[in-house]
């Protein structure tokens, strides 16, 4: 561990050095994700008590809430990478933003779908146009916009800049989603878990939700790193360090 602090982290800002590092990290993140999500689902579905009002249907929060958190968090992370890319003129930052977007979109979709599944038995409606639900739907469109904008521009430098600007503009939506339940009266309930107040849920339930969130983090890391490797291979195909993936893996082992 002594050497840990002395690692030159900037070394990994070059795709060439990042590629094998990502390859080494992916299995660990993936294993941690499987363990944590497995444990979280077990805790949530079998250990946590039923809810006094909703009975069993509340158990969807163990997927819904972590997915919704991740959808907002990943957008902010993507926007930060996009901003760094624009500011530093750094291609790897743009690649990072590119690699994060589909995972963020996936979690947004998951949050919306699980929310609808919960809304029907609880509220009596699959979907309502209240501020929380609508702003989360806009988040999905923003992710879609970022990805579409990139694919619609052939020149990768211009695609990077355009989608980065788009991602940064969309970041205003994140605080709107988060605070929507406080600023306006919505059908969606307020936050049960927040930084400022004591959680309004039983300890086991909270525990299961936090374990799931950690699991989703690890999943996001694993998938983003794997996607990053694909992005690097695709975009650095002219570079001299690049070799076909099969040989690259062989080189890593040696």
């Amino acid at each position, binding site marked *: 561990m002594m050497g840990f602090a002395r690692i030159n982290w900037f070394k990994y800002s070059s795709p060439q050095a990042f590629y094998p590092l990502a390859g080494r990290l992916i299995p660990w993140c993936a294993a941690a994700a499987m363990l944590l999500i497995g444990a979280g689902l077990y805790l949530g579905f079998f250990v946590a*008590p039923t809810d006094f*009002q909703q009975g069993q249907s509340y158990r969807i929060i163990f997927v819904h809430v972590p997915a919704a958190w991740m959808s907002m968090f990943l957008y902010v992370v993507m926007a930060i990478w996009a901003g760094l890319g624009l*500011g530093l003129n750094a291609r790897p930052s743009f690649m990072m933003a590119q690699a994060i977007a589909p995972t963020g979109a996936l979690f947004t979709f998951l949050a919306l779908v699980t929310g609808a599944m919960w809304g029907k038995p609880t*509220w009596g409606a699959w979907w*309502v146009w209240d501020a929380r639900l609508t702003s989360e739907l806009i988040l999905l469109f923003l992710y879609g916009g970022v990805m579409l904008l990139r694919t619609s521009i052939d020149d990768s430098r211009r695609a990077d800049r355009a989608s980065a600007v788009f991602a940064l503009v969309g970041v205003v939506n994140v605080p709107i989603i988060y605070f929507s339940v406080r600023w*306006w009266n919505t059908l969606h309930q307020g936050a*049960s878990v927040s930084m400022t107040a004591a959680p309004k849920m*039983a300890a086991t339930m909270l525990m299961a939700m936090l374990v799931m969130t950690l699991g989703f983090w690890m999943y996001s890391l694993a998938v983003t790193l794997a996607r990053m490797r694909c992005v690097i291979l695709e975009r650095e195909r002219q570079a001299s360090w690049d070799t076909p993936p099969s040989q690259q893996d062989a080189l890593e082992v040696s």
Partner: protein
Amino acid sequence: MKPRQKRFVLIGLGLVALAVAAVLVLNAFQSNLVFFFTPTQVANGEVPQGRSFRIGGMVEQGSLTREGDGLTVHFIVTDMAKRVPVSFKGILPDLFKEGKGAVAQGQLGADGTFIASEVLAKHDENYMPPEVAEALAKAKAKGAQSSSTLVVQPQ
């Protein structure tokens, strides 16, 4: 200033401008962004006239009555300050209960009764096992349980 710092400053300024624009827009649309109006707003005449809107609040304890046809229900929605009687013909959601939140869509009748075409249950942010809920209910058996999400401060 280095070009790099200049770019970061530009990005920062852009984000600030965007945030200001967002705040202005959201303020301008404030009244359109609320999902429901509170009984106080109804009493003050702040609700749209002659068209459908939503009203939200807590279903008053003991106010729920059913007509002979088994489908038509009457109840009172309150925000602890004002009360609005609501009538609704249809199936109520499972979680619709007295003392809990509800949101109804419909129109205000001439007699001040709100004729609802749709009723949704509003869930609060409290999650607990039934035993805890029972213990809590016993502890404050006298006081009516209030849900913090439903007491909406008038803006």
